[in-house]
């Protein structure tokens, strides 16, 4: 049995009387795409926040590569090798794609308080930025200012920026939200390419996308794990269908 890259043990988050995340214990295998799905309000984003350090759990722990990362700040979590995308795209609109990826890659340096040597000499940073752009298919847009790109392209840039930090594990929060069919297909293809060399934990509502890229799926309902299994198992599961048909489904 492969050692889990990321693991949660009894992870919980309470907001007053409400348990947004309720005793979730999951293991995420290295090199796999693990989707987390569930009806609205199931606690998926909160769960992701607990993994990335945006929120501190009320109980339980998070383990990455065998070491506890519970309660670390988002920055420290990122430095351990976990990258995360947000629902709102927030790139540097006045900078070019390359410059966006550059600053993301540069953020991994221990200190940027360096005043004398030209940054452009840092071939390692440039290479990381170029690799990220290539992987995301943004090579043609390298010198284009982000403000001039479409929403979908900016989403790709956002992903490229995360890749530029060379994480091992990527957390995606609804990467396909608000996209039309063609854009979605491009992003799904991108996610597949990324999955070749990275581990992915993905929240998504687009079921076709989920079923086509995920290796394993966890269904969260009311903050607790309803079921975890392979794509086929989840598709067939009566309990999952009941949970979805009984609750609001969002497009």
């Amino acid at each position, binding site marked *: 049995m492969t050692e889990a890259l990321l693991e949660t043990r009894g992870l919980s988050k309470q907001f007053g009387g409400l348990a947004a995340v309720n005793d979730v214990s999951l293991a995420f295998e290295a090199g796999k795409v693990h989707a987390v799905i569930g009806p609205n309000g199931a606690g998926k984003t909160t769960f992701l926040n607990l993994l990335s350090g945006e929120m501190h759990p009320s109980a339980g722990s998070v383990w990455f590569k065998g070491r506890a990362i519970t309660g670390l700040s988002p920055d420290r979590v990122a430095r351990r090798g976990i990258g995360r995308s947000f629902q709102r*795209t*927030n*790139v540097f609109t006045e900078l070019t794609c390359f410059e966006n990826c550059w*600053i993301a890659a*540069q953020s991994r340096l221990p200190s*940027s308080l360096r005043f004398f*040597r030209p940054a452009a000499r840092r071939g390692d940073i440039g290479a990381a930025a170029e690799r990220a752009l290539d992987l995301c298919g943004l090579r043609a847009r390298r010198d284009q200012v982000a403000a001039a790109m479409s929403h979908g392209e900016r989403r790709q840039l956002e992903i490229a920026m995360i890749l530029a930090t060379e994480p091992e594990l990527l957390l995606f929060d609804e990467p396909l939200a608000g996209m039309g069919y063609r854009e979605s297909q491009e992003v799904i293809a991108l996610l597949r390419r990324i999955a070749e060399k990275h581990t992915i934990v993905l929240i998504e509502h687009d079921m076709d996308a989920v079923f086509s890229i995920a290796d394993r799926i966890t269904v969260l309902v009311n903050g607790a794990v309803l079921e975890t299994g392979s794509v086929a198992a989840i598709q067939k599961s009566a309990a999952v269908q009941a949970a979805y048909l009984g609750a609001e489904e969002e497009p």
Partner: protein
Amino acid sequence: MRPLSRPLLVALIAALALLAVFPQFVERYYVQLATKMMVMAIFALSLDLLVGYTRLVSLGHAAFFGLAGYALAILQRDLGFVSLWTTLPLTVGFTALVALLLGALAIRTSGIYFIMVTLAIAQMLYYFANDTKWLGGSDGMFLDAKPTAEIFGLQLFDLKNRVTFYYFALGALVTSFLLGRMVLASLFGRVIDAIRCNEPRTRALGFTTWRYKLAMFAIAGALAGLAGYVGAAQDGIVNPAFLSWHQSGQALVIVILGGMGTLYGPVVGAFALIVLEDVAAGLTEHWLLFIGLFVIAVVLFLPRGIASLPLAGCVGRLRKRGGGAAPLPERRAAEAGDD
């Protein structure tokens, strides 16, 4: 900061050559005026680092300009230091240190508060200089001698000579420009670019942004100190007016007039404004009225400054390749995170 485009580089070198031969062809008055312009140019250039590149609008930058002048005066009068090799580094170093300390306080605030706090800090220094006898009160202090430039007793150059002083100032200007560009091209400069464009996102990437802003504040303060040093050495006097907010305000006008976020823009702006003031003062006693109207006109009609004019545009497309910063939007951006 983007690299200078070829046409722009050529223009700058041409301008430098012009400045280099200028004193050989004109009378003393113009050499002195040009020196004064260069002092203001260094001062404005240092402010551009803050305003144009880091989007920190300081209304108290004159604090460092004046501080350096007073430091030089005290070094001369009370410690007997006259050598350029000691007074210059000590003055600039002292100013940088003070900038670091005051900046640590000011950087805690942002936006409007920062503008007001920097103004208040400069005013504090102004009143302190004005009210303190030891600093000469409202009359200020005289600098009895120009800094000497000797090595092993041999005089390298004589700053009492106006033309020599002119070249000294020119050297300071070129050094400031190159230093500014070096800093902006470094890893530090990349972070500054990011902070200017989207500070919350920069923080989200893990950068402790206040440290970078503080460092820039200190660097800009040090360069303003250099300007103050040259200015005080030229005038032979330093008084509270060096610290006044009109000095800060004028520098801000110059930065916008020339074109902020370019470094060379403020240099152009300094020359333009000083010529304008010189001409206006010759025409009427109430020339400040026209300067006020001029400032308003610049804000309304030429907010991106001279560097953005079509003439300058043909020297290089400034936004994309011209060595400038990504421009400051005239309209205030909606709250952070706007897509």
